């Protein structure tokens, strides 16, 4: 292991937790209605907005009202985005004269960006007009992240005995007080580092080798900022963060990785504030960190081993650099890959398809457990709460008590919601993979044979249902079959979890809070942290081990025995 890589990992962990705690405090203040320094500028805008739309900021919504608001808002968003993409050629800012998207690609992309997945069945620079990128896609980079944060906050409020709040209020606050200001600063920083921001036509240049090359242009910096902060991951260019115009140097690379985890970590600190006990948030953070250390270690180890077959041929020695940007080290690439699949970001700076079989398996497992290792903005928190409630249920039983979390009883209703939220995404992953692996439409998109081909299918649905959006990229997904099935998987993976979580938030908020006595088991200590991490691992492994056996594990064993795909 390179010393520099260790330094990089440590520096990353330190900065992200350090800044996360500050933003977490700030988040708690804005969500709990406390004063913040941005009030003089933003409060008037916000109030005007609420007045015009007639939103009652004081009253907490019921489960039904909240769910209805959230679904109407999101489905409306999908509809508008679909229209923009489907009629792209009729709108402005289209210097390259890109045609309209096909119905299935428009549908897939609309659902993809609204669900914070940012799965891209297309290459950005050869498909999307500037209007589609800026007005269509970028807006949802903000709104989908804000939706996630709003649900997380509703759940925090419910668990800590407050009303779940108003969806529109939290959405507006998240966008205006968190995402916009941070993105502006971030975009300016990226500009200073060489990320482009223009509306020019593409430039044709002749390289020193005399080859003609087209340089794609565009308003990259502004979209890049929210792509990372909002754990969206939808790149402006097809090469995503491996493209020098998106991610020009080591510093931007570091900041990009940092910015993926920033808000998910901040939300955990905000949770501690809501619970009136910092340790409640830190215990969850520690559990995620523990899992992350395992997955990062696994990926890094598998990658540093390289490919035994290349070594034996004498072609390459040492770590595997296939599919990685040589500008970034093995550490920086492994870190980026692990972070982007841990959080449901999906931005990439290397080809996950080229990762060694086991590393690919680790990346998949992170998404399979439901993107709860920090996870997407908000989604990581409420996803982890599924496991936290299950853990506290088991812990409560084991000590002989009616299970409770934060002094509130976990009963049949919550368990039902937890099971639904656990089952739906898994069903989407395994169900669609099973279909795709057995039909001509599914097999047509494959780039590789054998277990690796199956991995590509499994990875695609895992990424979709986990709302991650990264791809193994061997798969040609821009077909009606994949576009539609992946869109369904993304929809289920998003709302199949969110709605049960709102139900839990609303039901918990109305429950009596019991006092914790001196001997009570707590959810803010080491035992809970480890129990939670083990629950995630065991449940994830038990559900997906059979599927992983015939993909990543089989490929690894076959590679060791000299068979490649």
């Amino acid at each position: 292991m390179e010393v520099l890589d260790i330094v990089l990992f440590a520096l990353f962990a330190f900065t992200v937790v350090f800044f996360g705690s500050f933003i977490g405090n700030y988040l708690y203040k804005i969500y709990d209605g406390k004063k913040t320094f941005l009030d003089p500028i933003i409060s008037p805008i916000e109030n005007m907005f609420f007045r015009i739309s007639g939103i009652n900021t004081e009253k907490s919504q019921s489960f039904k009202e909240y769910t209805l608001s959230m679904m109407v808002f999101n489905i409306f968003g999908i509809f508008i985005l679909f229209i923009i993409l489907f009629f792209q050629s009729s709108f402005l800012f289209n210097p390259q004269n890109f045609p309209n998207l096909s119905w299935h690609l428009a549908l897939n992309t609309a659902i993809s960006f609204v669900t914070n997945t940012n799965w891209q069945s297309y290459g950005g620079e050869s498909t999307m007009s500037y209007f589609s990128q800026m007005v269509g896609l970028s807006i949802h980079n903000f709104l989908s992240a804000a939706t996630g944060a709003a649900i997380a906050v509703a759940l925090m409020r419910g668990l800590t005995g407050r009303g779940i709040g108003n969806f529109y209020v939290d959405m507006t606050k998240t966008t205006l007080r968190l995402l916009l200001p941070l993105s502006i600063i971030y975009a300016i920083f990226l500009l200073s580092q060489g990320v482009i921001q223009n509306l020019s036509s593409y430039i044709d240049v002749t390289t020193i080798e005399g080859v003609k090359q087209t340089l794609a242009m565009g308003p990259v910096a502004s979209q890049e900022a929210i792509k990372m902060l909002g754990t969206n991951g939808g790149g402006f260019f097809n090469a995503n963060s491996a493209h020098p115009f998106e991610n020009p140097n080591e510093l931007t690379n570091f900041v990009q990785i940092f910015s993926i985890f920033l808000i998910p970590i901040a939300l955990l600190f905000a949770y501690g504030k809501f619970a009136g006990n910092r340790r409640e948030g830190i215990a969850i953070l520690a559990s995620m960190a523990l899992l992350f250390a395992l997955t990062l270690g696994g990926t890094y180890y598998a990658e540093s081993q390289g490919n035994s077959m290349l070594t034996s041929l004498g072609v390459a020695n040492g770590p595997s650099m296939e599919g990685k940007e040589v500008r970034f080290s093995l550490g920086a690439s492994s870190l980026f890959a692990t972070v982007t699949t841990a959080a449901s970001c999906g931005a990439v700076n290397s080809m996950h398809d080229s990762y060694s079989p086991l590393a690919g398996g680790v990346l998949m497992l992170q998404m399979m457990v439901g993107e709860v290792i920090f996870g997407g903005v908000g989604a990581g928190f409420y996803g982890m709460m599924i496991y936290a409630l299950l853990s506290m249920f088991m812990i409560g039983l084991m000590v002989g008590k009616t299970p409770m979390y934060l002094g509130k009883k976990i009963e049949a209703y919550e368990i039902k919601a937890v099971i639904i939220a656990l089952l739906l995404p898994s069903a989407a992953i395994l169900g669609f993979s099973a279909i795709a692996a057995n039909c001509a439409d599914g097999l047509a998109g494959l780039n590789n044979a054998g277990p690796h081909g199956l991995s590509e299918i499994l990875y695609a649905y895992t990424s979709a249902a986990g709302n991650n959006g990264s791809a193994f990229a061997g798969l040609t997904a821009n077909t009606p079959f994949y576009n539609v099935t992946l869109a369904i998987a993304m929809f289920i993976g998003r709302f199949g979890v969110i709605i049960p979580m709102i139900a839990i938030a609303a039901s918990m908020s109305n429950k009596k809070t019991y006092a914790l006595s001196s001997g009570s088991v707590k959810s803010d200590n080491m035992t809970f942290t480890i129990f939670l991490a083990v629950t995630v691992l065991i449940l994830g492994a038990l559900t997906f081990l059979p599927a992983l056996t015939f993909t990543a594990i089989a490929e690894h064993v076959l590679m060791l025995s000299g068979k490649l795909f």
Partner: protein
Amino acid sequence: MKKTIEINNSKIFKEALKESFIRLNPKHQIKNPVIFAVTLSSAFSTALFITGHFDSVDFWFNLQLLFWLWFTVIFANFAEALAEGRGKAQASSLRQTQSNLKANRYIGNVTEYVDASLLVKGDVVIVKAGELIPIDGEVIEGVASVNESAITGESAPVIRESGGDRSSVTGGTTVLSDWIKVRVTAAKGESFLDKMIMLVEGAKRQKTPNEIALSLILIGFSLIFLLAVATLQPIVGYFHSSFSLLVLVALFVCLIPTTIGGLLSAIGIAGMDRLLRKNVIATSGKAVETAGDISVLLLDKTGTITFGNRMASEFFTVSGVSKSKLLSYAILSSQADETPEGRSIVALAESMDAKSVDLIGEKTWISFSADTRLSGVNVGDINIRKGAMDSVAKFVELYDGMLDTECRGICERIAKEGATPLVIAVNGRILGVVMLKDIVKPGIKAKFAELRLMGIKTVMITGDNPLTAAAIAAEAGVDDFVAEATPETKIRLIQQYQKEGHLVAMTGDGTNDAPALAQADVGLAMNSGTQSAKEAANMIDLDSSPTKLLEIVEVGKQLLSTRGALTTFSIANDVAKYFAVIPAMAVIVFPSLAVLNIMDLASPKSAILSAVIFNALIIVALIPVALRGAAFKAQSEEAALRRNLAIYGLGGIITPFVGIKLIDMVISALGLV
């Protein structure tokens, strides 16, 4: 003397064995979804087997698999039937006497002789000496002594009379003298005992909220595994490979939580059974589980914490009097005193090797009177008296003596400790003071320390003055106390604690306790108490033992922790089952995946069969744990969690590795596959 309950174990065993087959009836199975899934899978596979859908090469292997699949269901049925059989035997031995009872029903002015089963609520019956009380009820007229040993095991007769706190009678008890008129409060089949019997009968048992939630988790896990297994076939279809359906069924049955699924209702029934063994009747399973959650225990001082009688605990002499003189006069003064206080003075003095002072002359015993408030003895002209300080002061003044400041000081000091001073004097002379104390029951302090460790707060309720109460509270080691309490204080206190988010338990027996018993989360009524107290409570202690509440808390906690422990064990088992079965299936697709067989099992077939056999046998192996309950120790929840995790979590991971390997060795040695 406790009544010993005879339970014929081999008969229950045989009965349960028979029941395990009868319970294959889908109507019964559907109540247990996890086991029902196994039943369906087995039935479906059997149908395919019979119609010849499986490869005949694997005939013996398939047959054995089917055999063990069915046994998984049978074993689960057996566990439930066994728990139920034991519970029923326990309950029916309690109500043996209740069957075939006859009653003299009283209508207008005539009585008719009817079967007790015909009685309805509100009927009035007359029971005379020598007759059995036919049914639970309330005395509305008359007084009688009743032998309640059939229910409580206590052979000393008790008085039952109309009005007041001793008006309730229980069916099956015998009237020894006189007669009583009883109004029926619960018709046959609705009495407390009947309700309890329902709780140990699987068929009629209502699932508790906690059981429902846990069942949902088990169903959820089963669905997840169904998903994982069902998609496995199409996934390997990608490699143009396929598995035998029976192997997939075997994997599915191995993975779903059959262990806890099969034992879940047995655990619930056994919990009720354990309660019944402690002679406690609960009106619902929920009440027992709530008992495990209790965080505040309200305990009456008298009877629960102390013996309730003041007893001599120390002698104090005044200057100029030797200790032996005081003791010898103290013995003499109390020799004829039959009150507990008097007897305790003699006992304490004699334990200090003292003997009665030997005075010659005729002894005239002076017993306590409300007038003088003194008792003692006259021997000739020597008058010995004992009594409260003020009364003795008046007595010594008759002889021109006086109660000096020294004695007054001793008395005040004793009073400050919450005890009662009793001064002993001979004519005009003060000899010393006996300290009378409400004696705290031995061992109760340790019990409270255990409760504190478990996070349960104990609060002593007493009518004593704050000084006395504080002293006893400190000695008994309770966390808090309420002095000069009235029944209203109790209910206010319960509401206060509940508002702070606590779950409160209390015991009571009087009619004025009824509102508080109803308000408490767990209200335990004494069987000797009034009917209204019993109706307000959700549990009744047939022994009327005030410390029973502590045992009930343990039963409740043990019930839940057994469920948690076995669920954890069941899920942890899956890790090893994966390691056994998945490699066996993987080699079918890729022979080189044989390297995954890290358990080194003999063959893919023996691996699968071993896992299924282990899965079935572990249910039987854990039946004792389900019936007995997971070992319970008074310790902090954190410690209990770590302990259970080590035993059932870690143990649950390791055990099947060993078990499956052993089974594999046995079946391959026997050449079964």
